[in-house]
């Protein structure tokens, strides 16, 4: 068995008195490709926000790579090897696609305090940035202002920026949201391919059940901040509770949740 790269222990978070993450515990094994599913408002994004330090948990521990990172500021969690792509695209819209990735490479290599060399002359960093752009298929758009890209490509750039940080754990929040069915499957194939080649641990949030069951090794079902079920795709599809809550009709889901 691989060691756990992430252990979430009795994590809780409430917003103005409403419990959004409720005493949540789970483990992610190193090298795993796993999915988190759950209805809207289940607390999936909040969970990512807690892990990456955007929100401070009310209680509980987040052990990343043996260290409790609960409440650590985002830039510190990034330095420890966490990176994420966002549900709502979150890029630097008035910079070129290349500059988006170069910025992340510069931070990864801790070159931010270089006051002298023009960043455009950092050949090695640019080469690295092009490798990353190529791995998500955005090389041809390197010089475009990233804000002018189509939605799908902005999502890919968001992932590329995260990849540039060379994370040990990559959190993808609905990477295919807002994409056409074709784009979705392309993106999913890309995510799987990246996972295989980079040997990075990945956790992704996804609504499309075909995708979730198609590529994940493990699925966790989140509902009202609770872990409803956890297991392999097979185990999950056999789990009646989940079938009721999530795979069933929408009205049923609302009743159960």
């Amino acid at each position: 068995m691989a060691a756990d790269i992430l252990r979430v222990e009795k994590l809780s978070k409430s917003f103005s008195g409403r419990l959004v993450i409720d005493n949540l515990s789970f483990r992610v094994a190193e090298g795993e490709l796993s999915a988190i599913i759950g209805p809207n408002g289940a607390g999936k994004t909040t969970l990512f926000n807690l892990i990456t330090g955007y929100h401070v948990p009310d209680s509980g521990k987040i052990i990343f790579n043996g260290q409790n990172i609960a409440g650590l500021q985002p830039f510190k969690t990034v330095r420890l090897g966490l990176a994420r792509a966002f549900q709502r695209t979150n890029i630097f819209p008035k910079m070129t696609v290349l500059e988006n990735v170069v910025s992340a490479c510069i931070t990864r290599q801790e070159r931010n305090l270089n006051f002298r060399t023009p960043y455009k002359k950092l050949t090695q960093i640019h080469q690295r940035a092009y490798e990353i752009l190529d791995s998500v298929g955005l090389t041809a758009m390197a010089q475009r202002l990233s804000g002018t890209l189509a939605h799908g490509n902005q999502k890919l750039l968001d992932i590329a920026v995260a990849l540039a940080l060379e994370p040990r754990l990559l959190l993808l929040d609905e990477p295919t949201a807002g994409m056409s069915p074709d784009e979705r499957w392309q993106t999913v194939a890309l995510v799987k391919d990246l996972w295989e080649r980079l040997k990075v641990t990945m956790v992704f949030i996804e609504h499309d059940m075909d995708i979730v069951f198609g590529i994940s090794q493990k699925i966790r079902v989140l509902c009202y901040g609770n872990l409803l079920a956890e297991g392999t795709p097979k185990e999950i599809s056999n789990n009646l509770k989940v079938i009721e809550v999530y795979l069933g009709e929408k009205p049923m889901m609302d009743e159960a949740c």
Partner: protein
Amino acid sequence: MLNIKLNPETNIYEPETKTRHRVATALLIVVFFILPFVLAHLGRTGVYWIWVTTEIIIMSLFAMSLNLILGFGGMVSFGHAAFFGVGAYTVALLMKKAAAPLLLALAAAPLMAAVAAVIIGWFCVRLTGLYFSILTLAFSQLLYMVAFQWYTFTGGDDGLHGVPRPDFLSPTNFYLFCLVIFLICVWLMRMLVNSSFGLTIRTIRENMDRAKFIGVNVRFYQWLNFIIAGAFAGLAGGLFAQLNRFAQTEFLHWSRSAEPILASLVGGMYSLMGPTVGSAFLMCLRIVLQQAHKGLVEYWAIILGLILLVMVLFAPGGLIGLVQKIIKKKNG
């Protein structure tokens, strides 16, 4: 991972425009070096105009220093005069009370301003948006009050008059002295803006949250940028005290802080030289109006307001942005 050769086309500068740019810049610099000698031939009005251009150079430096945080950093400071004033008082106090040589006093000005920026910035970068702006304003007004009240040290509202001027600094020489310092500062700021540090600052301006998630310690870099901007402002203030041969509380006043903001807005916040163009434009316009008709200056606030209105509505990139747009259109 995949191996890709760096595409030569992607090197941003095209050699041709780069050369043209360089030639134009060199010519402009030569013109500014010759200017005082031409003006000196005009007798008394000439000396006045040398004084005015020196003031424009200094205020341009002040405006550029603000723009490091305003345009490049996205931090709207309403209290940048604090550092201008600290620099001015440093030069005035050192030269007048301690008989320090000019160069020493001018070296101390940015240093003292940086020290002030270290302290003030430490608090201010903890806030964002309007709260940041208001806190910078509060700190600068605090310094203003200190200078106003501490009569024995700062001369209170009389200020410090009669700052000594070394003999060799004729108006022409002082102009040249300021020009050289200005050019060195422009060179330094250009380096800064184009560096990895500059790019990091831009990521913060563009999307502060995302900057955190690529691992940028946002507060630290904002603080650093704030200190650097403060140091350049201090140098401008020091030169200004030497130009006027006095330092007074008005140098610290919030209305002083407004000048570089207006200059950056009018000239263009998103280019290095925008604030310089804006400063020169506004100061020249004011003088021209004054010469045309004494009464016109009374309407200065209205005229300024109209200019700003037009700029904000029709040329958000300022004068430089406007020129760039026109050139782009011409080239197809």
